[in-house]
């Protein structure tokens, strides 16, 4: 069993819901972001804006696991790589060595609270009890392993049953994220990778990421520049109540 994720770039509407869901799920402090949605602009007509959702790739050959001097970064048998904050010494070698830059060092200055200068909200206080973030250590996405473990104990299937599926996958309104077992040839993720020529980021590093990307237009091409119209249309479809208003504002220009 090896958990993995497939991200459909053409479906992603850059709504940042996955980022928000993760923040809520793990009570992430303000300066901490586990999944990111990177975006860039080009001057190519029709391809002006492109996004790429990224999170820890849970590499099969994870450099962060190899370099951690305290063995605080651990790879589980199911492929999930997580950080044991009780062991981490905060040397930040893992942050530097990650070729995808998906780790963040949680320094004290990032622990300002959601409203710096004010008392912490009840949500934050509750979160601190439920999910401790230790200043001076490194953090990263762990595929919501606590959800997976709890769900599997109940006999649920991660990727199919919401209760056992990562929060970002559950919340994605465009269904751009698919989660499942990469070792199972019949799983949805395996099928998508096979049918749509899923690719990994920088496969040449030999890290074997568990996060794959698919783009129905460009297939195995490493460029994932999706036409703006596709993204905008998809975005508007999901924000249908705003469609008329959006057309009114943007249509004129």
């Amino acid at each position: 069993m090896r958990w993995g994720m497939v991200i459909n770039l053409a479906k992603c509407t850059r709504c940042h819901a996955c980022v928000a869901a993760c923040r809520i799920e793990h009570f992430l402090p303000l300066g901490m972001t586990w999944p990111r949605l990177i975006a860039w602009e080009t001057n190519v007509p029709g391809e002006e804006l492109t996004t790429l959702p990224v999170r820890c790739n849970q590499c099969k050959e994870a450099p962060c696991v190899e370099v951690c001097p305290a063995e605080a970064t651990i790879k589980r048998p199911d492929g999930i790589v997580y950080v044991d904050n009780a062991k981490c010494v905060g040397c930040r070698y893992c942050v530097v060595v990650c070729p995808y830059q998906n780790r963040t060092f949680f320094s004290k200055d990032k622990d300002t609270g959601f409203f710096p200068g004010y008392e912490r909200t009840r949500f934050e206080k509750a979160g601190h009890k439920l999910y401790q973030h230790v200043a001076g250590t490194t953090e990263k996405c762990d595929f919501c392993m606590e959800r997976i473990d709890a769900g599997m104990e109940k006999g649920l299937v991660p990727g199919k049953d919401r209760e056992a599926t990562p929060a970002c996958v559950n919340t994605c309104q465009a269904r751009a994220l698919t989660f499942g077992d990469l070792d199972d040839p019949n799983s949805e993720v395996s099928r998508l990778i096979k049918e749509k020529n899923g690719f990994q980021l920088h496969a040449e590093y030999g890290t074997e990421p568990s996060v794959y990307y698919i783009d129905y237009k460009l297939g195995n091409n490493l460029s994932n520049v999706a036409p703006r119209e596709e993204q905008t249309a998809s975005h508007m479809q999901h924000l249908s109540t705003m469609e008329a208003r959006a057309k009114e504002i943007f249509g004129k220009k």
Partner: protein
Amino acid sequence: MSPMATRQWMNTHQWMVKPMHQREWIERRGIMIWIAETFTSLGAGLFLVSLFINSWWGLLIGWMIIMFIKLPIHLAYFGKPWRFYMTMPPWSNAWKTSWFARGILFSVLFGMFGFVQLVFGQPDLVRIIGSQICNPIYYTFGVIAGLNALGVGIYGGFIMNYVKGIPFWNQGLLPIVIMLAGVADGFGLIMGVALAGGDASIAWAETGSRYLLLVNVLLIVTYMISAGYSSVVAKISINELLKGPSAFMFWGGLIFLGLAVPAAISVYGLIQGIEASSVLLVIAIVAHTIGAFALKYCILKVGIYRPLLPKIAPM
């Protein structure tokens, strides 16, 4: 530019979109890594050179640089410094795969064996106990401490060399460059020991320094040429060194002060057939040391990651 691009209705951010600098080990608290790495080279280099010429004072100063400057600064950089013991056996077996863990282990072993060596090499103690007892211990522990000093001097190169995302670091020559630069720094500092009346020869140190400077120039040139061939992103790093934001540190600190000034003083002494004056030697030592800081700064500062998607980078 298209209306969509100019409208900026969404703030885009460039995280790993274009070649991106590593910042953890050079900016803000990361400056401590730069300083610690430089003192690693200075301390390990001085210890190894002193071991070669059997200079007790050189050994002592090299050992003190590692134990009282390099290690504390490195530990202070840690987010959880008091957990540093967890990087060593029996708490962790990471030394099997991690050069960072190996480096910490080398440093601790160096500290222990080097201490014993220094104690049994201390001239007054040798007079009291007798050289027949002291010498075997001094030399045995000296060999072990020397091997660990070699490890201390080279592990920083392997740490950076392992980072696949930064092509300028991911070069086979990097550990050698760092190690030999450290030994050259050791030659520079041993001149200081000799000047201060320590048990070292200025003439010998000058000769060693001369050859090492030549080797280092060749190594740095070879390194930059071969790195430039390896990747476009590495070429961006090199351009930053040659004519970019780090050019002042590269040309002024590393090339002029670190290499040209000590070389000129050394060649002057060679032509004159006499040792350079004390003033010139002090200038050479200071320039050498600034060069050591400049080298580490240059390497750390131009560590640039490949972007996540090659197509979108200016390649």
